[in-house]
């Protein structure tokens, strides 16, 4: 069983829920940028929630099926077509042997999750099928898909078509996207005034936004509290002695443009961080297009944990709905 890649799309990779446990040697967790959408897609086609799917950024691939399968597309509003006939997103549909799955232009969001019954059966690498392209690890040959690739599929359970996730349970970013952040880490390096306008300024996603991190621009530069550079840190006021970077951490090189690290994060480096976007909001970042407006808002640990539980509740409701 296999699917043939006719056109790869812009950047389509194999992803599951990731590869924890190797961050201490620089291998990030990887996996779907929008975890909730990946789980939903797998549930729709009857796969385990952690099965490997295709994550397509901005532009969908064109895939030829050599076997019958059930498919679901979640996450971004990327309308699917089977032999040219449109299929609803967030809903399972059948693709017959010999048919071609393609996509119309993106309507909303940034990343679509294409789950196929049986899951993409590439070999496990350090316990995961996720692609970490920077390290050429996992996924299909450690890279994004190319025309001519043939992806093996696992044995499918043959889930019924027409299963759907109610609109109220689908989650996407608003406009502007509001990203909740816990201030901390090296927050003390910026002035009180800078700390205030960071949260009141409106930012825009910069073109440099990928699986490693999302860069934002448009806000005022951050002013630093003066200091004598510590030995080994470097002379720029935004430098620190190279340290580990949390997932979701917000670094601001030279105080200019914040970068939020995501699933393929560089694990460490020499730039100070002013806080961390909470785990519940990382999915949303994965659905932001370049130039999308965004604002950061400060939250406490209690609020972060409440948001985490809210997200878990939504997942439980998705499971219950199917």
């Amino acid at each position, binding site marked *: 069983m296999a699917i043939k890649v006719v056109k790869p799309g812009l950047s389509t990779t194999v992803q599951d829920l990731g590869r924890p446990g190797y961050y201490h040697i620089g291998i990030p967790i990887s996996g779907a940028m929008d975890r909730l959408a990946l789980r939903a897609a797998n549930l729709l086609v009857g796969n385990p929630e952690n099965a490997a799917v295709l994550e397509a950024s901005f532009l969908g691939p064109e895939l030829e099926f050599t076997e019958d399968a059930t498919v679901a597309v979640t996450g971004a509003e990327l309308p699917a077509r089977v032999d040219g006939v449109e299929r609803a997103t967030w809903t399972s549909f059948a693709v017959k042997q010999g048919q071609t799955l393609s996509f119309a232009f993106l309507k909303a969001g940034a990343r679509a999750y294409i789950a196929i019954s049986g899951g993409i059966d590439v070999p496990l690498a350090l316990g995961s099928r996720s692609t970490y392209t920077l390290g050429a690890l996992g996924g299909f040959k450690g890279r994004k898909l190319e025309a001519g690739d043939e992806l093996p599929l696992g044995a499918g359970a043959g889930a019924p078509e027409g299963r759907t996730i109610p609109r109220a349970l689908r989650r996407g970013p608003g406009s502007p996207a509001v990203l909740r952040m816990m201030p901390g880490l090296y927050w003390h390096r910026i002035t009180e005034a800078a700390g205030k306008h960071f949260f009141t300024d409106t930012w825009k996603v910069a073109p440099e936004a990928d699986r490693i991190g999302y860069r934002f621009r448009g806000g005022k530069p951050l002013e630093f509290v003066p200091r004598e550079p510590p*030995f080994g840190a470097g002379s720029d006021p935004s430098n620190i002695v190279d340290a580990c970077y949390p997932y979701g*951490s917000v670094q601001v090189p030279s105080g200019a443009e914040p970068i939020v690290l995501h699933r393929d994060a560089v694990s460490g480096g020499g730039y100070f961080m002013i806080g961390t976007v909470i*785990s519940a909001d990382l999915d949303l970042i994965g659905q932001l297009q370049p130039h999308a407006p965004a604002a950061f808002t400060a939250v406490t640990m209690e609020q972060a*944990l409440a948001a985490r539980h809210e997200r878990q509740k939504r997942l439980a409701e998705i499971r219950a709905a199917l």
Partner: protein
Amino acid sequence: MASRYSYGGDEHIFVECDEEMSLEAFFKSLSITKAVREAQIAGVTEICPANASFQIKFDPDVIKPDDLLAELKTIEAQTGAGMAHLSTRIIEIPVLYNDPWTHETLMRFRDRHQAPDKTDIEYTAAINHLDGVEGFVKAHSGAPWFVSMVGFVAGLPFLYQMVERKRQIQSPKYLRPRTDTPKLTVGHGGCFGAIYSVRGAGGYQMFGITPMPIYDPNQQIKYLREFMCLFNPGDIVKWRPIERAEYDQIVADVETGKFTPNMAKVDFSLDAFHADIDAANAKLTGALHGH
């Protein structure tokens, strides 16, 4: 020095052992993270030592953030000033300094450099008052280096030179990062050395290249079959300058599975090191030659 604790969102605790880099701060990070690993705390998912800090990733559904924070502080108190001894290994890394590949790359990005009319080695030699390229190579390869952190990208070692602070090589990063760095480039930024495990962007000064792969996601290379990354924090590295002929030979030997890295088990004592740095280093590097 009192450690500074901070939450990194709802899933990380970040601990800065010291603002500035020192062997003491590094050993503190190494000893606390070792103790945390041994404590096997339920809910802790990643333990990442860094140069002068460390980070713990956890699942707040399993352990309350405040409980983990308290437990880490207790472990820090019990660990005290940190361990003074380390059983580790020393690994010899052959380096072709001033190689054609980093040279081609640095020439392409001269407009992003502090001294466009000099190479990275010439510039770093000058600002560290070393006697040209030759003096630089001698200083760079003369004493061993600690792997004080592994990361940025898969398997990339950060290296801290084992000499007194006044003898440590320091250099700024490029004014603007390059978009390209050859794989296995030996680089330097701030007080840290590095080996680029994969090709990609970078801001460190480029001094040379090693023929010895340090990361192999396919695990085909003989000495990386057991695990795809060579380095762990706490390893010790000794550079060995080589010429082009030997570089080519090692590349060929890696390809045919004939190359075995020169490494040896060693014991490091912080007290003995501070008592006589050159003697301690001579003993460490002697282990590479069967002493």
